[in-house]
């Protein structure tokens, strides 16, 4: 139970194995700091992200979900991130349509060489979600502690 502790958001970051995951690694080896609230989940390609994963993350207590993938044109599988881009655009638009805060979801392209961008992105995203507060609109009370 978190009674006296200050609330901090839980962020789930889905990172592409080939670029953003390596980018996160690089930001670590460069000793750049980003908040520990960010939980990274490695996926083989940004295109692997099933919309269900995002909703599931919210259900299990995430306050923000971010997808990091290779820059368009740099996909390890040539075109995966182009498909992911269309899907995420439509999904985010639908979440927005249902009245769920659009700032809770984000897509950012981070290459393996952009350790600094990864840290900056995460810092910024955590700040945004902290300002929004707890995820109330897509929570599942049964999954709460």
């Amino acid at each position, binding site marked *: 139970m978190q009674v006296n502790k200050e609330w901090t958001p839980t962020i789930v970051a889905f990172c592409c194995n080939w670029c953003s995951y390596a980018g996160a690694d690089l930001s670590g080896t460069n000793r750049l700091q980003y908040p520990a609230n960010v939980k990274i989940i490695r996926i083989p390609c940004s295109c692997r992200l099933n919309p269900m994963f995002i*909703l599931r993350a919210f259900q299990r207590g995430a306050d923000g979900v971010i997808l990091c993938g290779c820059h368009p044109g740099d996909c390890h599988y040539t075109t995966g991130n182009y*498909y992911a881009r269309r899907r995420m655009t439509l999904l985010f638009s639908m979440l927005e349509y*249902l009245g769920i805060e659009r700032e809770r979801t*984000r897509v950012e392209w981070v290459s393996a060489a952009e350790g600094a961008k990864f840290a900056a992105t995460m810092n910024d995203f955590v700040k945004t979600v902290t300002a929004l507060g707890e995820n109330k609109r897509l929570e599942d009370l049964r999954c709460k502690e």
Partner: protein
Amino acid sequence: MQRVKEKAIELLRSGEVSRVLGWKTGEFFYDLTPAVFESVEEVEKGFVFSLFSGANLSKYLIAESKKEGKIAVFLKPCDSFSFVQLQKEHRIKRENIYAVGIQCDGMCDGESLRSAGCEGMTGVEDGESLTVHTLYGDQVIEKKEALLGKCQTCKSKRIVDFDELIGQQGEDVPSDRFAEVAKLEAMTPEERFAFWRTELSRCIRCNACRNVCPACSCEKCVFDNPVSGVQNKAVADSFEENMFHIIRAFHVTARCTDCGECSRVCPQNIPLHLLNRKFIKDINELYGDYQAGADFDSRPPLMDFRMDDPEPSVIYTRGGAAK
């Protein structure tokens, strides 16, 4: 209307087809249900084509066209879009189907007649306006008032694919079907959230929307997974209502022909078509106009991309929804 029944009899009698997919009477004259007829006698006894033949028959072809022998099916313009979409997805065997296109002026349903003030209905006469026979005498109401929701915003009178036509071939008609979506988009996120909570919290997870939807035709559905925890209302909370409807709408994105069956069958009158239309509207605005089932050769937008597609952040900056 009689011509449709005659056609069914003629096709069976000539041996052209061995079965006919049509509508038969339910308990009342206004609750017609889809049915397969295997003989002339069955057709003579039970086949009905009337103002209440709103049901889209194309989904039944997935199972029926795989059976032995040819089956005749009657398709209204909006049904023919689903028919073509299913062919594009290789879900039905076209060579086993004899498609008869029927022109349509809009279908009605018992519920809209009742909400227009008719009680104890015993029959309806079609015409310029509808004459409704009731236990308490006749009532005349405007046809516009009794139309199904999906017919009020009819998008096309064109029958995309058919072997034979009853009535005239029509054309796409201008429709303001996105007006309701635009109205929702103009609200604040709080208002939209409240709106969808009111609507979706009525969901009883009867799965009627899924079962009737021609696009929802997976042989194994994600929502049938017993460990997903989304299969019944007894254990559900608000999250699952959101989840079920978001994922269902997403799974039919760019394949939904906007036939409006989901909203028609919903026993709780949830405007489910508004979710599908939102996706259609977004696709039209972001990736160019696309109508699922309108032709045989276009590429579905989610199986396609352009190098210069807008970034997902576009929804933060877009007018209307993102104010």
